[in-house]
């Protein structure tokens, strides 16, 4: 859990219904963002509900860098005001996230960055983004051999030679 620091509510100018949030990244960058942009995040929404219960607004500390946080904000800004079924807490979760072209381009990044976005999206509980990232990972390994997958995913082979030669699945055909 992030530590919560109090900020003076008066420093957050209200503009209609869209109030501002102060997000603090792990590299201690302060990022101000409109609340309705971030409402896609279940984590942030729950924080905001907490503010309303106590009538106190706080900065929200997040355990990832501003570089990743900005990427997530970019995603949320793009879909600001859009209804995405996966992010509706009241809707039955869809069997499968649809392919969104913009997301494919947005997630065309290296493995490291992709994994960091996934962790952040998972932490923030943005299901649509987690779904699109999961799809992106799947695209990276589709049709690849075991050896190629190790390379792509940064996984060390730690099987003993005997284990490796006892295939446990018929699906490899």
């Amino acid at each position, binding site marked *: 859990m992030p530590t919560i620091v109090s900020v003076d509510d008066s420093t957050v100018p209200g503009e209609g219904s869209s109030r501002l949030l102060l997000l603090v990244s792990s590299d201690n960058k302060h990022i101000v963002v409109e609340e309705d942009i971030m409402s896609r995040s279940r984590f942030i929404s729950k924080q905001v509900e907490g503010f309303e219960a106590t009538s106190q607004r706080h900065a929200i500390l997040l355990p990832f860098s501003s570089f990743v946080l900005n990427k997530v904000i970019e995603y949320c800004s793009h879909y600001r005001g859009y209804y995405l079924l996966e992010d509706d807490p009241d809707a039955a979760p869809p069997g499968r996230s649809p392919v969104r072209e913009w997301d494919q381009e947005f997630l065309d990044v290296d493995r490291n960055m992709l994994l960091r976005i996934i962790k952040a999206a998972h932490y923030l509980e943005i299901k649509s983004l987690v779904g699109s990232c999961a799809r992106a990972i799947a695209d990276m*390994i589709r049709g690849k051999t075991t050896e190629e997958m190790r390379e792509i*995913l940064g996984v060390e082979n730690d099987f003993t030679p005997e284990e490796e030669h006892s295939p446990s699945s018929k699906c*490899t055909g």
Partner: protein
Amino acid sequence: MSSFFVMPSEVAEHSLTFCHPRDVAAFSQTCRRAHALIYKATDQYLWRSLFLRYPFDDPRKAVGASPTSEFDWSGKLKRRVFAETIARQGGDRHELLDALLECIEEAAPLSLGREHEHSHNISWVEEILIESDTLALEPEFTESEKLARLRAHLALSLEPGVGTAAPERVKAFRRISRIFVYDLRNYLAECQWGPFTARAEGVYWAHVNAIVNVITMNLRDFGIQWPRDFKPPLSVYGLQATRAYSAPDTLKRSPLDWAGVEGYWMRIVCFCDYRDLIRFNASGWRAGFFDDEYEEASRLLRLNLRLVSVETDPEVLAKLPDPTRPPITFGGTMRGFNAEEQLDRAVRGTVRVMPDGNIRWSFTSIYDSHDQWSSEGVQIGGVCSAAGVVGAWTGAYHEHGDPAGKHPCRYRPFWLFKANEATPKASWPE
């Protein structure tokens, strides 16, 4: 560089659900953690998702499955993926046929409001059969009842060709099927005169398949002279017609009528000239007796059936293979489409579940108040399928045909299928 495993494992699993099972298997070989993630998961989420997204129909929604049934999702999926490999590269054909038949059996039943949704299972089976040489065996090849059963469910829908212009394979199917269907030795009292195994404990699919082929090829000869509305839906729509509740109006049947008895039906009966029938059986069942130009007669009849009673005796129910489907007794009328047939004939019969789980239809019809015929058939596909019932119509006084009483004197293949109420209004060409 961070590795795949910095991800929370549920997200890792989620991403694998977007992959082909083959990729998942390859991934499981990358390292121990990957292997544990795939094969040691405490729930079935990953394999169930892979199965349903392949896509296959949800087996929990198949007829007879309960929504809480436990499935070995990974085993089921692996068998089907492996079947694809066998179809492409060869291997144990029994395993392939088992997977195809299971898939047809577990095809999603039609449901109200979703009547037009295609079945993923059926599409998968058709794709495999079209792309592989699974069916491209010599017609003489009698591998097993499994292949005959698969063929009976297809009704040559993937094998085009009409009459003498048909490919040699298809013509050979017709020759072999006629020899089977018109051989009186295949109509036995011990099989209760139907296309069944001894004591009618199961279906004899080679016989059913032969009947399907004979009728299908005869109808093809008629071309547009035999309107589409009067053709068995299996010949028009193929395998999709085998799905449970695909017959017209069966989703709105009364709750007692599990078999979809009530309503209008059409029935096609084929027969060869009576003298030919005798000559064929008296002259040693020559393989070349029915040449490619040979023609049979085909007749269309319409029926109107209603439910008379449903078995409720608890003692009888306790002995049934499926107590939720007790035997139904039905009655109704039948008449031909020809102008000279003005009179309805009375029909009376039963529908019940056989020990092997198939659905058997038995009924008798009375001609001129004395000449009785009996019909014994089996439902193709799921309960209330559009594909309908295929079987044999034999002289009910079987002992007249054969001094030993072993064989009937007359026997004709028939195909019975449910009609839209509106269909009999369509004009039948004279």
